């Protein structure tokens, strides 16, 4: 019975196995990225970027079909264009950076939806907006895995400057020039992972598999390394449980994955060992020193 519900879908169907592999790859790349997004107070920037890269990914999609490489390249270009333009406008005119970014990402989203609906079909639009992890072909899966690998390798190189820049940016400026390149590389990794997330969750939910596991991890650890070690398996678990849920019910796969993560988040808010509500209501007795 339990085997039928939890394991059989994956042994019986190749598309479920591919979906599971994709979710694991997304979790490995997106988990650590999400933790940094959260700690750098960029959670909503991630969301804005997800919308901003849509026209680029859409153009890539229209030019070469569901080719993840073309979509990634298009997304990178669009993402950096929006980030750069927003930065230029806010610096040149004094408009606050968040207002400027909001304007550009909304414009970008509108442009992206326009391009897809004028040139593509409604199915394409639904695909871009909500993704479909159950329809991944081998080539796309391979590219999701490559993106995850690149993410982990680059993150290993920029990890130290990224952490120091988050804690004490002025100190990093006085000891190293690595701050700005590390930040740019980090932005590129966000885009790379969002484009991967497109396939599974669509543009609206792509950032979910990064942010939710990171927020969950925050309730279980006070140190960044364990936080990342918690975020990745949490994302894998959400992905697996979401796929099972979606397989057994009529819930679409993307939302199912995010809903499972949201349930884990709710549990963590209540029972987390770091700042969980229940822990605060019933604190253990204070210590001697």
């Amino acid at each position, binding site marked *: 019975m339990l085997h039928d519900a939890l394991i059989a879908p994956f042994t019986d169907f190749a598309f479920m196995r591919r979906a599971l592999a994709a979710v694991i790859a997304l979790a490995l790349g997106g988990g650590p990225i999400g933790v940094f997004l959260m*700690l750098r107070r960029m959670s909503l920037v991630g969301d804005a970027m997800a919308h901003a890269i849509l026209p680029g990914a859409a153009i890539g999609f229209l030019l070469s079909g569901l080719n993840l490489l073309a979509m990634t390249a298009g997304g990178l270009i669009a993402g950096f264009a929006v980030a750069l333009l927003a930065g230029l406008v806010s610096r040149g005119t004094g408009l606050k950076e968040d207002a400027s970014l909001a304007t550009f990402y909304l414009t970008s989203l509108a442009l992206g939806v326009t391009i897809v609906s004028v040139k593509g079909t409604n199915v394409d639009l639904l695909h871009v907006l909500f993704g479909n992890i159950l329809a991944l072909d081998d080539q796309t899966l391979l590219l999701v895995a490559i993106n995850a690998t690149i993410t982990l390798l680059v993150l290993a*190189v*920029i990890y*130290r*400057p990224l*952490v*120091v820049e*988050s*804690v*004490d*940016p*002025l*100190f990093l*400026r*006085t*000891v*190293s020039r*690595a701050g700005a390149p590390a930040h740019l590389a980090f932005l590129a990794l966000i885009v790379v992972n969002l484009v991967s997330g497109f396939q599974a969750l669509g543009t609206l939910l792509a950032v979910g598999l990064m942010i939710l596991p990171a927020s969950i991890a925050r309730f279980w*650890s*006070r*140190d*960044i390394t364990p*936080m990342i070690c918690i975020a990745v398996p949490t994302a894998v678990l959400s992905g697996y449980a979401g796929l099972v849920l979606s397989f057994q019910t009529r819930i679409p796969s993307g939302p199912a994955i995010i809903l499972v993560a949201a349930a884990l988040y709710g549990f963590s808010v209540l029972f987390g060992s770091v700042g969980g509500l229940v822990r605060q209501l019933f604190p253990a007795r204070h210590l001697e020193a």
Partner: protein
Amino acid sequence: MPAQLLFHNVTLGYDRHPAVHHLSGEVGSGALLAVIGPNGAGKSTLLRGIAGILKPLSGAIGLCGLDHRDIAYLPQIAEIDRSFPISVFDFVSTGLWGTIGILGGLGRAARDKIAEAIAAVGLNGFENRPIGTLSGGQMQRLLFARVLLQDARLIVLDEPLNAIDAKTSKDLMVLISRWHDEGRTVLVALHDLDMVRANFPETLLLARGPVAWGSTKEVLTPENLLVAMRMCEAFDDDAAACADDISPRAA
């Protein structure tokens, strides 16, 4: 005594308004210099200029062969995100950046050095605590531990003893004196004149321009302090461009 720092008619400021106006002079290698002056006198601005955070509006600051990254600089208002989940040990370890860089590992020797630095500032036992749980004084000790590890020839501290209790001030002053004894050049901005008299051989009294610069005893006279107190803090929005090419007040 060879020079470690040379000020060539330096003017530092913001939006063309000078905060340090036409400063010339040199700081000898191994000097222990107190930089004093009222609020707004340009102390922090000068130290930022030395650290390379702020480019001079005119003139130049010579570092005598040092790179900006060889300077240990402790700002007055550290932009530290204290909610970031990092332990005391890991935070202090970033002081080794100059030797381990981006990718270098922390070997046993490095770990011992970090533990020594933490012990030297009296934070032993705090290694695994998140930095967000430290008090103000403990935070300052933490920052001193990082400066210790930076092992810099030139150390620049901006009001490191503000809002610090007497015991901690004394402990931190011991570290500053130790750096002096080790032959490092140390510049410290501070307000406590008794502290300056007791510990600093040299003093620069700043009030936008240099009021006096020399041995602490000669600088800290009531007349000099009065001149510094009278300094006008406000920028004049309608000020004309400064025609003063060569400072008449060069020290």
